[in-house]
Every structure is written in structure tokens, then in C-alpha cells.
């Protein structure tokens, strides 16, 4: 008897869960299903292109498919047909004994201020996906100006700031495409103001992210709104203070950090953003920054392809991710859009134990068809061999100083994977 398990979403949570389940039981078969023909979720499409070391974690995930017998079913979207899904959750559950949803949270959170829809305003998820060549955003080109305001104080905001501030030679070794490097340098960026709602010691970025900025070659830093220095202060404050004193003398860009300002509205001229307005947290003071680009990096949300709210509200144990025996939620989709790659690992190990315990308590009949049924119904799905062929195409002929040239269209991925074109 083999228990058939489908994990929807081949990002870090899904992969770590497959790893942990594989260690607990050997009478299971696991398929990782993803809407894209390529696995690894935000490791491929979120983690900054100039942080290749972090992407090394995929070597572990590759073992799942290469040595541990996990299957990959790519190019299959699960969920509501109104959101272009190929297969509903109910249908998928007919094929498998256990289904786990690990589809992440890919929609950008909105600020909810007037003027938010002006041209020149971009959201973090769109930009980071675009720079990472995600097929959803490859064709939408952000027109970046010279004076940028970033709203948000998390690591994603710092990733965006760093990518905007780097000069082309600082992308050596990354997989940032030449077209992006070129557009970034053509934008002729001069100022970046990064504004957070919280005081500096409550900012959500890690101190190492700030120290890394100190190494940028052509950038000067100004840090406003810091409290007076104190011995043994918070590491973020120390890193910011140090950054304020660093900075290249021949800088052509200035980055200003500001803390404790609440975004109020964006105003524009001819439909394009020209000013960002803030007020002091807990006070009446106003701050107006002239800009031609406004970027919001304030978190992520559900893309509504699956009814997350309903799943969470009917869960027998929402915190553990157990909706009911046979149906579970993992990773960002379960927890919300917080937490780094290691947190998903710890979480996945807990969830695997829960699933194993439920399997003990409610042993399934073990007669589900699994991926055989999916492949019989869709000749458009891809497999792990297909991803290897895509990977090969992406790493075969790379420009100087780059480690990969990503394919940006699903069509091209499918062609490289050797799969049939979609016929619908």
C-alpha cells in the first residue's frame, strides 16, 4: 500500500515538507505540484539575484527528485477555475490521500492611501518578480525615474534599495539579466528615500542587510530620525549609525533613511506620481518628498486562487495547518507572509509529524491514482526531467559575469522542457 501525497507549491515550504515526510515514513509517494514548469518558488523568484549563496538551498531540494523518488508535476494550477486554475482542490483530493497547500502569498499588500494608483507607483512583489524574470511580470516594464521613494522597512525593501543603488559591475556573479542592469543604469537614479512607519529600533530588516549597503560603491547615505546613541543599543541602530558615516566620496546617488513617518497620500501631475506625503507617527508634523517613482514594500497577501480564509476558518487546528485529516496548509499560505527560508523548514518538520500522526490514526485505503490520473487528463503538465532541460537551457550560454540567463516566458520553458504546447 502506498499513501499518495500531493503538495501544491514547490517553494521552500513544499520542498521542506516533502523532505521531512520522506524521513518519517517510507510507504508514501509524494508529488510536488506547481503552476509553473519550474520548481522552488521564491528561492527562484523572490530571493535577490545578487544573493546567489542563499539560492544554494535548492541543491537540497534537487535531492528530493533525484534520490528520494519525489515527483514533480509542473504547469498545473490548482484552485478556482475563475482564476484560470486547471484543476479544483476537490478534484485533486479525489486523486490523492493527502493534499497540502503550500502555494505562498504572492499578491502585494496595498497601502490603502489616496493616489496609490498613479503611474510611477510600483509594488515590491511585482518589482522583485520582474527582476527575477518571473513569467507573470516579464512583459511589464517598470519605468523608473531619478527620484525614488521606498515605503517599507523590511528586508524586501532593502533588497530593492540595494538593487536600485548598485552599479552594473556590482552584479557580477548574479543572475540579473543584462536588460535589467541596463534599464537600471539608464534610469539615472539620483536619490532614494526609504521611509518607515516605525522608529528605527523597530524596523524589520536585519542588521546584516544594512551593513551590506555600506559596501556599495557609488552611494552616499544619510540616516535621519535616529535616537541619541547609547551603549549596547539595538544592532539595527548601530548598523544604521555606522552606515550614516560611511559612503563613497564620489557618490552619484544619495540614499536617505527616515523613520517614524506614516504614509498619507500620493499626489501627481498628469497622472504620474510627483509627491509622497507623510505625517509623523503620533504627531502632526508633515513630510513631503518630491519623487517620480514610489515603491511600496509593505508585505504580501493572498492571490485568492484558493479560498484561504474559508480553509483557515474551518481548520481543526489552524496553527498547525490541519484543516482536517487529509488536508493541510503549509508555509506562507498557512502562516502569513512572514519568515525566512529556515522558518519554513522548522514549520515543515512540525507539520510532517502532524500528518504522520493523522495517517496513523486514520489509515487511508491506499488506492488513489496520484499523478497517473493527472497525466492522463492533462498532456500539458511537465516533470522534473523537463525542469532539468530548462535549467540546462538557462545555464548553457550565459553572458559574462552571470551565472544564469532565465527563460521569461512559460511558452519558452515548455518548449525547452520538451512538453507539448498548451492547446486550450
Amino acid at each position, binding site marked *: 500500500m502506498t499513501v499518495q501525497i500531493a503538495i501544491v507549491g514547490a517553494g521552500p515550504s513544499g520542498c521542506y515538507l516533502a523532505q521531512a515526510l520522506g524521513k518519517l515514513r517510507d510507504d508514501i509517494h509524494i508529488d510536488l505540484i506547481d503552476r509553473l514548469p519550474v520548481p522552488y518558488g521564491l528561492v527562484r523568484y523572490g530571493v535577490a539575484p545578487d544573493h546567489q549563496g542563499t539560492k544554494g538551498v535548492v541543491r537540497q531540494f534537487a535531492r528530493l527528485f533525484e534520490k528520494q523518488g519525489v515527483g514533480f508535476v509542473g504547469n498545473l494550477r490548482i484552485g478556482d477555475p475563475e482564476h484560470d486554475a486547471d484543476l479544483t482542490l476537490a478534484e485533486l483530493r479525489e486523486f490523492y490521500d493527502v493534499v497540502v497547500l503550500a502555494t505562498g502569498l504572492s499578491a502585494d499588500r496595498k497601502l490603502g492611501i489616496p493616489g496609490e494608483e498613479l503611474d510611477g507607483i510600483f509594488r515590491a512583489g511585482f518589482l522583485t518578480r520582474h527582476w527575477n524574470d518571473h513569467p507573470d511580470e516579464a512583459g511589464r516594464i517598470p519605468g523608473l525615474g531619478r527620484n525614488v521613494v521606498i515605503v517599507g522597512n523590511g528586508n524586501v525593501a532593502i533588497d530593492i534599495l540595494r538593487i536600485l543603488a548598485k552599479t552594473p559591475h556590482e552584479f557580477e*556573479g548574479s543572475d540579473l539579466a543584462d536588460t535589467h542592469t541596463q534599464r537600471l543604469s539608464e534610469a539615472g537614479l539620483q536619490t532614494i528615500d526609504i521611509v518607515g512607519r516605525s522608529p528605527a529600533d523597530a524596523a524589520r530588516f536585519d542588521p*546584516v542587510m544594512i551593513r551590506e549597503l555600506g559596501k556599495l560603491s557609488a552611494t552616499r547615505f544619510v540616516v535621519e530620525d535616529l535616537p541619541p546613541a547609547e551603549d549596547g543599543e539595538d544592532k539595527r541602530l548601530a548598523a544604521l549609525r555606522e552606515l550614516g558615516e560611511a559612503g563613497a566620496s564620489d557618490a552619484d546617488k544619495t540614499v536617505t533613511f527616515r523613520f517614524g513617518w506614516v504614509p498619507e497620500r500620493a499626489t501627481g501631475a498628469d497622472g504620474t506620481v510627483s509627491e509622497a506625503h507623510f505625517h509623523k507617527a503620533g504627531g502632526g508634523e508633515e513630510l513631503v518628498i518630491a519623487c517620480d517613482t514610489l515603491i511600496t514594500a509593505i508585505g504580501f497577501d493572498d492571490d485568492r486562487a484558493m479560498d484561504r480564509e474559508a480553509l483557515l476558518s474551518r481548520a481543526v487546528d489552524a496553527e498547525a495547518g490541519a484543516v482536517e485529516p487529509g488536508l493541510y496548509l503549509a508555509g506562507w499560505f498557512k502562516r502569513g507572509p512572514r519568515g525566512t527560508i*529556515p522558518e519554513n523548514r522548522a514549520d515543515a518538520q512540525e507539520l510532517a509529524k502532524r500528518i504522520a500522526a493523522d495517517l496513523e490514526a486514520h489509515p487511508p485505503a491506499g488506492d488513489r491514482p496520484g499523478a497517473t490520473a493527472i497525466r492522463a487528463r492533462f498532456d500539458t503538465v511537465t516533470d522534473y526531467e523537463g525542469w532539468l532541460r530548462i535549467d540546462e537551457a538557462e545555464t548553457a550560454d550565459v553572458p559574462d559575469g552571470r551565472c544564469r540567463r532565465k527563460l521569461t516566458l512559460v511558452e519558452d520553458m515548455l518548449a525547452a522542457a520538451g512538453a507539448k504546447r498548451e492547446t486550450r
Partner: protein
Amino acid sequence: MDITILYGTETGNAEMLSEDLQSHLEGSHEVEVSNLAEFDPDGFDKARFYIVICSTYGDGELPASAQPFAEAMDARKPDLAGIHFAIFGMGDSEYDETFNHGSKRMEELLTAHGATRVGERLTHDASGEDLPEDLATDWADQRVAEAEPLLSAASDA
């Protein structure tokens, strides 16, 4: 020789490398693998050789799975005189100021309690060209060769 591979990890790279080294050494040795989180500092055995693989997190800190071990060491202060270990670090030069500080701390922790390091600590850079297993297999073979006479001298004494 009886070998224990101990790993401290957060995203699992050190665990995977431990498993690789186990398969590599298993033909000629008796090899156990243990997560530092599950290893009791009172459980060190002079008759075994320890290979410690440890990554780095946060601001040059020990990874999550090594932290309970470090706390238990501090609390119980075991006497590790006569214990031989080799240490391999995993880090990322993106974090250059704290590059591989986790494995350095782990080394200091073990030697501070009297354990003897065999050979140099080798560090892997996730942003570099080398795969950890490519660096670690030769390194481990050499450390094991160096440890063999040390451990048999100790058991003769």
C-alpha cells in the same frame, strides 16, 4: 574507526553534507550522524572521532540547531579532555564581516572545554565556486587519517 558526525544547521545544508560524508566514510568506518540539537554534551566518548559541521546565522551566530547544545555546554561544563574533533564550517561571503563565525564559535566552545582539534577548520562559502561535498570529502579523509593514530595512542595509554 568509530566516527560521529555532528551537525548544526538552519536551512539543512549542513545536514545534507553530514549524510554525504556518512556515505563516503561508511565503507571503511562505523559512522553515526547526529543533529547537535539532539546531542547530549555529556555523551562525548574518547574512543570516537567527532566531525562537526556547522553553519552561521544572524549576525555571525550559531545556527538554531546548535544553540541548545551551546547552552547545555555552558550549563554543564563537561570535561572534553581527550576528545578529538575536526570542524567544517558553512557560511556565505555575502556576510563578509561575520563569514563563518558560527563554526569559529563552535570550535572555540569545544576547545574551551578541553577538546583537541585535529587539522585546520575548513570553511565553505555558499557564494563561491566549490560544492561543499567536493571540499569536505578529501578534507575528511585527511582528518580521519590524522585522527587514527591519535585515537589508538589514547586507547593504548
